[in-house]
């Protein structure tokens, strides 16, 4: 006999003639109510509207004046109960009604109690699954289906390489510095010992910008990160250990190895007794970290107006280890950066006494490093924002 049937009969009809049986009956009803309430909480309502509807149904089933379970109990159990059992039945009934009021009160005044304990609906669901009572075997899903993914985004390959490079120098105690991209001709050229009258100026294909109130050819898109050398010297003085990552611009027609906008990393160390030996040692450390501990370096004389002596640094080919291959054009070496001892003229322009301090500096294209690191063959790919490219990093 289920509860619906039981509440349609009197206690006498149910054979409840002592306190024990009466209490058991009420306990059964309480348990049913609690189970239904729990069922509502953990039940699979698709949305809150549906849950709300279920709440209302539950309330009506138990608390409705007409045909509600509680009023049926009042009608069939309490009212006709024998006198000797009445106090007991009355007390049990009141408790039941109070418990039932939870349903009513919660819905209308205190909100719907959705989680009486701290278990989430899912946890509650799991708990019922492990109960032997509800141990219906779950239909086995195809566990070989791929998982439900939440895709991660990604950092741009150039950013990843820049971070790695920065990290290596941060390890050596260098600080990161940045500077403006729209730069004066003074900082971009003149202060770096590249006067307009010298042909070296032509080594940088320059994009000039027009600013209100300024003459033609007075402001440029910086052609390299080197102006930050001067700016930083002015700002901090010596000693100075810097790394300057940033965008630079050239009046270059785009092709597989040239971009109008690209990234450079500048390094600068100014201190007492900084020598070419520090340049070699530091860059050797850097390339071993970046390309692998077996990497060797080669320094050859070169010319940059802002360094003296100037050098071009090559590393032993990472592809063939120096034996000669397509990557290094059979030479075993790949040139990756320009470097040198900071020219005294440049130190002076930065407000640093070249007699007391010396320094070394380097600069290279970060895009090129990223191309090397990831095997990218066309620099344009970095700037085309193509997901098919970006998602590979």
């Amino acid at each position, binding site marked *: 006999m289920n509860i619906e049937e039981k509440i349609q009969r009197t206690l006498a009809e149910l054979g409840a003639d002592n306190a024990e049986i009466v209490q058991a009956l009420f306990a059964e009803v309480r348990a049913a109510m609690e189970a239904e309430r729990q069922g509502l909480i953990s039940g699979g309502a698709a949305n809150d509207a549906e849950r709300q509807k279920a709440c209302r149904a539950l309330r009506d089933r138990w608390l409705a004046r007409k045909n509600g379970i509680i009023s049926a109990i009042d009608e069939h159990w309490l009212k006709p109960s024998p006198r000797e059992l009445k106090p007991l039945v009355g007390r049990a009934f009141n408790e039941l009604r109070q418990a039932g009021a939870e349903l009513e009160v919660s819905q209308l005044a205190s909100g719907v109690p959705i989680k009486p304990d701290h278990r989430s609906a899912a946890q509650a669901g799991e708990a019922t699954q492990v109960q032997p009572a509800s141990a219906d075997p779950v239909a086995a899903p195809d566990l070989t289906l791929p998982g439900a993914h939440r895709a991660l985004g990604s950092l741009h390959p150039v950013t990843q390489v820049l971070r790695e490079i920065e990290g290596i120098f941060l390890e050596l105690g260098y600080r990161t510095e940045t500077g403006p991209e729209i730069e004066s001709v003074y900082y971009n050229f003149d202060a770096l010992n590249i006067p307009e009258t010298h042909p070296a100026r032509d080594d940088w294909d320059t994009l000039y910008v027009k600013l209100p109130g300024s003459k033609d050819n007075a402001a440029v898109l910086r052609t390299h990160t080197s102006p930050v050398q001067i700016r930083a010297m002015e700002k901090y003085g010596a000693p100075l250990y810097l790394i300057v990552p940033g965008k630079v611009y050239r009046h270059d027609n785009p092709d597989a190895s040239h971009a109008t906008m690209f990234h450079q990393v500048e390094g600068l160390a100014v201190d007492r007794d900084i020598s070419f030996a520090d340049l070699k040692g530091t860059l050797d450390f850097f390339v071993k970290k970046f390309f692998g501990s077996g990497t060797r370096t080669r320094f050859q004389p070169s010319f940059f107006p802002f360094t003296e002596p100037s050098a071009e640094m090559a590393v032993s080919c990472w592809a063939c280890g120096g034996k000669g291959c397509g990557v290094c054009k059979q030479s075993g070496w790949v040139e990756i950066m320009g470097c040198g001892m900071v020219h005294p003229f440049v130190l002076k322009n930065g407000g640093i006494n070249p007699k007391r301090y010396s320094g070394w500096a380097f600069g290279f294209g970060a895009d090129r490093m990223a191309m090397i690191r990831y095997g990218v063959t066309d620099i344009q790919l970095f700037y085309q*924002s193509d997901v098919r490219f970006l998602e590979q990093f």
Partner: protein
Amino acid sequence: MKISLNMLREFVSAPADVKRLASDLTRIGVNVESVREQEDDWILDIEVTSNRPDCLSHLGVAREAAAFYRKALRMPGAHLAESDIRAKDAVGIAIADTDLCRRYCGRVVEGVHVGPSPDWLRRRLEALGVRSINNVADVTNYALMELGHPLHAFDLDCIRQHRIIVRRAKPGEKLGTLDGVDRTLEADQLVIADAERAVALAGIMGGEESEISNSTRRVLLESAWFAPASIRRTAKKLGMRTEASYRFERGADIEMAPVALDRAAALIAELAGGEILRGSLDVYPGKKSRAAIELRETEIRRILGSALLAGKVERLLPALGFRVTRRGKTAWRVTPPSFRPDVSGEVDLVEEVARHYGYDRLPSRLRSAPPSIERDSRRAKESELTAGLVAIGFREIIPPAMVDPEENARFTAQPPVAIENPLSQEASAMRSSAMPSMVAALARNLDRGRHDLAFFEIGKVYTPWPNMPASSGPSAGLASLRHSETLADERRVLALGLTGSTGSAGVHDKPRELGFFDLKGHIETLLGVFDIRPLRFESLAARPYEPNLAGRFLHGNEALAEFGELRQALAAQYKLRQRVWLAEIYLDALMRHPLRPRVFRAFSKFPSAERDFSLLVPEEVTYEHLDQMIQGLARNEIRGYGPVERLPEGKIEKGYYSLLLRVTFQSAERTLTSEEVSDASRELISALAELGVRLRA
């Protein structure tokens, strides 16, 4: 610069192995880019840096090789059979502007027969990439390749009154140059003139009217020195670049002028016949002796980290043409030769020694910066921010910062920074909004059939300073800028672009189209990395965004982020067939806020109770109103709350919308009784009632 091995061997005994020669030269800074065999010769292609005009010749490269291999340097002979007629009776030379022309040498060869050059000369020139013209012109070019000094040959009979005057052009003066162009000159451009008119553009190109032709009988050979800056300015202005101007603007060797002249005169007499008139005209008003430079052993050690090299000074520098005298035990006085304009200071001498010694033989030492207790908070902030972006699925892009200004104007009223010499109209300004590049990136991928996209960019936007004083002497003013000043207003922004659905369709999830609140949520998440109090939201009407679907976050009156749906009219211009969500987060402002502090606060060990309230809210009441009202209650029992469902206006009751509010009650001190929860609930409801909010029956 192309170097013929055969020609080089006339100057120095170079090693037989050309590969070894190439790698040795490269090691000392004469960068051999390629080596190729040509007939019975080898051609070395040398990249000569702009500081080394001396290496733009076989002589200069030979000098480097001679110093490296410790061999003697041989100069080509100039066998001059002069006639009895004096050259100075045949032509007069005067330099009017001695600041631009420090030396002018000339010789006259009479009775030449202009014609094709002999085979050997033609072949040599062609191997070096020089077109053969006629025997006279070819000789001047050959001497140039050998010795590096530009020469010019005039038809003396076309020089009026046989007078050469080196002077600045008269404003508007005309000259037809050898390339067939009629040029109008300016007053600061140096010309070679005769008694009446300009006959050559000094150091750059000769004039048509005095060109050597087959009828030329008398040749005037010019070998001069012109001021580099002037040649460079004129050549740039006129858009001309010749073998001569290339060398003069780098600095020719003033002492080479008469040597090259004699060499060429002798060759012309040999190949074209004729007689060399007696004497060389040499007008040399600008003779200067070069200052000696002190070179100290201590400086060599300071710059190179090794004193070993000091021993090399007295052998190496003289081999490279420097005059060296010892000063005490540890210093020298060094006078650089006339062909080395690049050497002017002690450190230049240090480099000379170092490069010939070999950079690879110099010591190496790893030195770290002194440790610093300073923390780079900018870096920490940026890495937290980007970690968040990657975690919520955004991919970083780095689009070009150059845009079409018209396109830029569709997105912002801020003017961009114009580029004076752009490569194209599409890249002719530095953007003042990150939106055009972002939309272009989205459009590009949508065109390729990728429909779910989430991009971010950390980059700059650029706009001129609003009140850059027009009067402040521009280039001088810009030169005096200090480090902290920038020429334009450059701001860092974080741009977001979002389109498509919450994920691609799969067996597990049903994707849903992204909307305003997806974007807003992302921005709240990102701003949540920082401690920004109070953070305020307001709706926004701005150019790129659809009205009613844009908003911004502010701290005080400072906007931290603006975002919304790309205006559909704009989307149509990009032929976008789906809704696009954009945001600009102002990093300079955001980075001024500290990161969200990590401070532990004990949580309650007592159970919490959650209650849902189904509310009927008047249309004009926003969630923000409810939010402020509940916060105003300051009831400790209310631990948290949030909207879980919203049904639109009118559906339930006219003038109202329905909102399901979920509230969590909890106390730090005890388990709340149901009466306490009910009390707090009643208070909540009656507070909301002040806004006209009712509980749904």
